[in-house]
């Protein structure tokens, strides 16, 4: 006596086969489709299972695969019943079936059904393996073949589309899931079948899903979920499509994992916001730079006129220092705008960290926090170099350490670490880090942490100052952002409230060697010798400052207010060097001016002065022969050294 299960959606065959086998003393159960069979098989372990190949909801092939995946059913002998046995013959072993009986007249099928059962009873299953019984008894199959082909075409399409497709029965159990849908859940279709769809998403999502289903059924229309569901760290979008009543009210569900898409959208919005803020900040910075030139530049000239013991030296130096600090903030804004022309060089982050830790700024930070903040470092001694601005990167380190210290009002530890890193597949975190070689600098604290809603905004200018109550200018983190993006790097942040914060900066590696620092030069080393200089600047104060400084340095200086005037001047007069402002709206810019000047004076020496310039225009002018770039506001050192270097080139 064997325990037998027959699965077929044709009632007449089910009745016949079960009556036939019961007459022989076997225990027979029946199921009208694959899902009913799976329900039964949760508690029953038949010896033999007859399975119709073509059934609605769950095909015989799929049912075989599922049965073979269930440990308690491994020993079952699977017999396919097929009206298209010839076409299916090569495939039955592939989905786990043992043998096949062609469907046809009962008087022929009877012989084969009984033969198979007898062989299994005798333990001679091996003689049945891979065989097809009753091929000669089958009627004309042309249309069956077409149906099979159409069915396989449909199955192939559903198996390969990128969107997930599921079908739910009227009780919201999963009766079908294509591979894309199964991938959303990280499970196989076999594991999803017969699961309660709502239970899969968890109790917190059930109200939204039930409402969606009700709306689909009531309206008879496709309904989309209002906003993506949060499920196991993913964001899931779905829509429900009611199918007509003749099919027992199933619901089709189109389902997509939009986690990555939403993250990229957030990153893009963040980047666009930063760009907009940066552009605004940069515009302000340009005007401020010009104004600051007087505050920064004139004190040098006044100090040169004062005796060493003059009581005015101290206040004038204080004015100059204030001006320099303001200029530093302007540079922060320019960094934020990412349109400041920063000096790019090969730098080693370990050296920057070392220098920062010996700097007055770090000493001041430690003093401010009354020694409650301890700092240690874990620097990779074989750290590779990066190509960037030492000034910007030092500022970034400084701002990160400052923020880390602020996060630990009652004291704590900060750790600065560096390491080389190769990313071989994109890392999706706060930023998406592409594959490549990176130097990673991390600053970690044991402070109060940052909430999720704040993390998205901490790089916005003034957010940390106003919203999070941090001290400073409020531009610190924005500067970090700008500095990293200028170096084409990425930022990653790990933080949670009460659990501290780690900020990691990923900077692309440079294989070049570092350039050594320039030795400090004394003014005597860059004095002029009466060379003629033409200063071209549309701002009167800038012309005056530059002219006064250059005259102090021993040059003969003339000035013109525009590029056009400079060209006209050059046609009439030879000069040793031109100091070119880049932006001179509404007239031609510095690059265009230089281009016209060298047409009449080939090889004309020039230096470019700018506080806010289009980097590409500066490069273009340098490619034409212009020399180095001087960052405004002018100081005696920077303008003097640049002109001296260019004249001697």
């Amino acid at each position, binding site marked *: 006596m064997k325990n037998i299960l027959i699965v077929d959606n044709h009632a007449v065959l089910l009745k*016949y086969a079960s009556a036939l086998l019961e007459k022989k003393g076997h225990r027979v159960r029946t199921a009208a489709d694959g899902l009913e069979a799976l329900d039964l098989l949760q508690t029953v372990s038949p010896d033999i299972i007859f399975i119709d190949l073509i059934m609605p909801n769950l095909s015989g092939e799929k049912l075989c695969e599922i049965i073979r995946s269930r440990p308690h059913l491994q020993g079952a002998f699977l017999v396919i019943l097929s009206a298209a046995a010839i076409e299916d013959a090569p495939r039955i072993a592939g989905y786990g079936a043992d043998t096949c009986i062609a*469907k046809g007249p009962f008087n022929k099928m*009877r012989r084969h059904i009984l033969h198979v059962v007898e062989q299994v009873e005798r333990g001679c299953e091996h003689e049945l393996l891979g065989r097809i019984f009753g091929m000669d008894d089958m009627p004309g199959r042309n249309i069956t073949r077409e149906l099979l082909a159409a069915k396989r075409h449909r199955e192939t399409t559903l198996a390969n589309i990128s969107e997930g497709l599921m079908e739910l029965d009227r009780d919201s159990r999963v009766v079908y899931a294509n591979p894309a849908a199964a991938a959303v859940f990280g499970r196989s279709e076999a594991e999803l079948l017969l699961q309660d769809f709502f239970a899969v998403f968890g109790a917190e999502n059930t109200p939204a899903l039930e409402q969606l289903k009700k709306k689909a059924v009531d309206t008879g229309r496709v309904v989309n979920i209002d906003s993506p569901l949060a499920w196991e760290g993913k964001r899931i979008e779905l829509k429900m499509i009611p199918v007509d009543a003749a099919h027992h009210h199933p619901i089709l569900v189109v389902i997509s994992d939009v986690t990555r898409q939403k993250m990229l959208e957030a990153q893009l919005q963040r980047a666009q916001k930063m760009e907009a803020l940066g552009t605004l900040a940069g515009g302000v910075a340009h005007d401020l730079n010009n104004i600051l030139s007087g505050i920064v530049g004139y004190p040098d000239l006044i100090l040169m006129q004062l005796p060493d013991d003059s009581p005015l030296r101290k206040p004038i130096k204080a004015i100059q220092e204030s001006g320099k600090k303001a200029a530093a903030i302007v540079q922060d804004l320019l960094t934020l705008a990412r349109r400041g022309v920063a000096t790019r060089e090969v730098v080693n982050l370990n050296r920057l960290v070392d220098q920062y830790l010996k700097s007055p700024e770090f000493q001041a930070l430690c003093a401010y926090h009354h020694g409650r903040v301890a700092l240690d470092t874990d620097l990779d001694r074989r750290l590779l170099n990066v190509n960037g601005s030492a000034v910007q990167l030092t500022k970034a380190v400084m701002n990160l350490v400052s923020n880390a210290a602020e996060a630990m009002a009652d004291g704590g530890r900060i750790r600065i670490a560096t390491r080389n890193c190769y990313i071989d597949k994109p890392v999706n975190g706060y930023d998406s880090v592409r594959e490549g070689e990176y130097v990673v600098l991390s600053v970690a604290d044991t402070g109060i942490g940052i909430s999720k809603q704040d993390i998205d905004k901490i790089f916005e200018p003034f957010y940390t100052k106003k919203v999070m109550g941090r001290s400073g200018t409020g531009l610190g983190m924005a500067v970090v952002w700008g500095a990293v993006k200028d170096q084409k790097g990425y930022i990653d942040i790990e933080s949670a409230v009460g659990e501290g914060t780690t900020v990691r900066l990923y900077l692309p590696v440079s294989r070049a060697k570092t350039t050594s620092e320039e030795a400090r030069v004394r003014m005597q080393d860059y004095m002029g010798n009466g060379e003629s200089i033409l200063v071209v600047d549309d701002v009167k104060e800038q012309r005056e400052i530059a002219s006064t400084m250059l005259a102090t340095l021993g040059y003969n200086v003339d000035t013109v207010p525009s590029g056009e005037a400079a060209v006209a001047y050059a046609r009439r007069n030879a000069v040793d060097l031109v100091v070119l402002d880049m932006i001179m709206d509404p007239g031609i810019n510095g690059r265009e001016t230089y281009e016209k000047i060298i047409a009449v004076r080939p090889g004309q020496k020039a230096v470019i002065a700018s506080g806010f310039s289009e980097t590409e225009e500066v490069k273009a002018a340098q490619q034409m022969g212009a020399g180095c770039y001087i960052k405004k506001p002018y100081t005696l050192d920077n303008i003097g050294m640049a002109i001296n270097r260019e004249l001697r080139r």
Partner: protein
Amino acid sequence: MNFQTLSKDIGLDEEECRELLTLFVETSLHEIHAVETALGAADPSKAAEIAHSLKGAAVNLGLEECLDLAVEMEATARSNRLSETALLTAEFKKALETLAILARVDI
């Protein structure tokens, strides 16, 4: 239909054969109604799908007249000759009525 011969052929007793035939008539009637609905909705592929299913059961019981009709129904539906399909469906229904009498079932 000779139930004695059928019983001997398929290995069930006569009463069981009668039950099988009854089941065939009942399920086939249900499917014929579905074909008529599909024809009314001018849905030839649906009609063909059901006719295909009718074919299988007819083959199982050796009901050649029903089998021939089901084959024609499927073929005409697939080639969109729905008026012919409708005529064949009516004939199939008549054949079921005859079988119902044989099986002593009221339809």
